[in-house]
């Protein structure tokens, strides 16, 4: 106890360097824990993008590919699914609901998704939340569009505005469906998922804007006006993917196998949760790399602390000599410096952890709103406590290094005859 008090008083005497050292350690601890928080937050946000959907059906492809293009709008489909197959799946007795998704067009770089009204009731995210409208409502007219909150914010759209959909998915549009503009019928509330960056229209509308096109380009002199198109048969010929909900979860694997073995068309049915797990397996290496980097930052901070104590040793020869003269044994000097290292690290760990939680508490709503990343504010998990404990022990041990030097010096200083 005595040693701890002496160490504390000694540190107080050099409070500027001590404070900076503590801050360096605190920052490194914040980084170490913060990386972990962001990692789990990112995973959860990703996993939260889709919930309540039992299967996703698309053309035969890898499960990751299908998940990424159908839910995250990353990449493209290998093939389309014919409308007939879609209807066959919809008719399966185990299927409770099915929502078609049709991708391929864009609006100023935002993907356009053709779907139906069920999308707004059956698509769930973040533990079963459904989409809410910030303004307006779902599409009712053929040329109505519902836009995500990011689309509305970045392009400054309000309900009732006219928008033109472009063919293809580039942010620079070469061919536009300018003869058939859409009216914004609703704006969705922020979800923190790719929905925010999507323009939703009905499947029939997707069909309608392509009806007078051939081979991916408008045919000159053959344009069909928006009014004429309303009278035509707009049953889609193909969709990109479909979300499927089942009456009973127990049928999941059975239906999945039946779709994968569907003879009329090569299809893939994937379980979104399982595909996400595969994704974690892939990016796990990058996550490990992040953790290693943050661990190295902690090591650097501890090294800085050792340097600080070592450099001040020379100035503190007098302090040591006085301690020795009043009867402190070399072992006391050794203990003193080791405790100093431990105290600095402990302070760093406490401040770092407190700082992280304060920061999380303050920044969480902002990060959630801006990036759709919900960072969990929960107490450190067992393995994190272990890490923190290991850092304190490491700090104490690091303190031993200058302590050993001081121990030797204090002996020498005691023996030397000074002039």
């Amino acid at each position, binding site marked *: 106890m005595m040693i701890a008090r002496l160490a504390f008083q000694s540190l107080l005497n050099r409070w500027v360097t001590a404070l900076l050292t503590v801050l360096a350690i605190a920052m490194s601890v914040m980084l170490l824990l913060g990386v972990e928080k962001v990692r789990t937050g990112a995973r959860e946000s990703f*996993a939260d993008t889709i*919930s309540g959907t*039992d299967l996703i059906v698309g053309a035969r492809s890898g499960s990751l590919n299908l998940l990424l293009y159908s839910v995250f709008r990353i990449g493209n489909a290998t093939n389309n699914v014919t409308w007939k197959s879609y209807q066959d799946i919809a008719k399966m007795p185990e299927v409770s609901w099915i929502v078609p998704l049709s991708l391929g067009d864009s609006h100023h770089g935002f993907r356009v998704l053709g779907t139906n009204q069920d999308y707004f009731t059956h698509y769930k995210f973040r533990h079963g939340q459904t989409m809410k409208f910030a303004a307006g409502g779902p599409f009712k007219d053929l040329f109505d569009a519902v836009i995500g909150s990011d689309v509305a914010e970045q392009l400054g759209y309000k309900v009732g505005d006219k928008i033109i959909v472009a063919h293809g998915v580039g942010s620079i549009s070469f061919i536009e469906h300018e003869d058939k503009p859409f009216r914004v019928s609703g704006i969705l509330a922020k979800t923190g998922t790719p929905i925010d960056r999507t323009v939703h229209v009905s499947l029939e509308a997707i069909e309608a804007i392509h009806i007078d096109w051939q081979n991916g380009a408008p045919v000159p002199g053959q344009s069909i006006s928006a009014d004429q198109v309303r009278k035509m048969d707009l049953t889609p010929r193909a969709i990109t993917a479909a979300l499927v909900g089942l009456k*009973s*979860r*127990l*049928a*999941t*694997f059975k239906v999945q*196998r039946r779709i*994968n*073995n569907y*003879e009329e068309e*090569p299809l893939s049915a994937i*379980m*979104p*949760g*399982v595909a996400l*797990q*595969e994704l974690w397996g892939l990016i796990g290496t990058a996550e490990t790399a992040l953790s290693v980097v943050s661990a190295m930052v902690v090591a650097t901070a501890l090294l800085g602390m050792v340097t600080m104590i070592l450099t001040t040793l020379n100035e503190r020869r007098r302090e040591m000599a006085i301690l020795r003269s009043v009867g402190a044994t070399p072992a006391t000097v050794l203990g003193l410096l080791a405790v100093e290292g431990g105290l600095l690290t402990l302070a760093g760990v406490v401040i770092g952890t407190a700082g992280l939680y304060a920061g999380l508490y303050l920044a969480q709503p902002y990060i959630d709103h801006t990036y759709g990343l919900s960072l969990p504010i929960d107490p450190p998990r067992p393995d994190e406590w272990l890490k923190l404990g290991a850092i304190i022990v490491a700090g104490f041990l690091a303190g031993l290094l200058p302590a050993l030097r001081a121990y030797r010096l204090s002996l020498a200083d005691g023996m030397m005859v000074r002039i």
Partner: protein
Amino acid sequence: MMTTASTARSVIASVAILVSLPVLAEQAEHRQLGPHVHGQGTLDIAIEGKKIEMELVAPGMDIVGFEHVATTDDQKAKVEKAKAQLADVLNVFKLPSAAKCKTETANVESRKETHHPGDKDDDDDKPGESQHSEFHATYTITCEAPESVTGMETAYFSDFAGGQLLNVNVTTPKGQTQAQMTREKPTLDLTGVM
């Protein structure tokens, strides 16, 4: 304007198409095969209410060490023993005792992988002919306290010397996940989805 040469070519082409038509018709049968990896099996687990449904698909190589039709008495005995072992599901896949689970149905069959699940085996396999065969097992289990099913321990790897890995797909009221059980780690943690 069409030249004589190109007319001739298109005539030849149409003849070629005509000739190849019957061949195409013959090829119009449906062909597809699932993956088959020795050492790797798949275990699907679906949990709803008090009911757990499981399905195991494992290559014959993993279970009995051969994939042709059993001919000798020794081989036949091996297949029968494996079927009996797999049928005792709660011994192969041990669930926590607190969940109080019991087996409702257990159905184990060994079949060629060209058969779709549920198809009847037409037993046209030629004895000794090498081909991939698989064991399919379907189970229905009920548990009085399904919330206690927080994990699983398997004797699959000690029972069957050829098994190296089980890919486990799980769907529960809380979500879906995928995990692996291996010879080194024959356990499954379900705390995240229960």
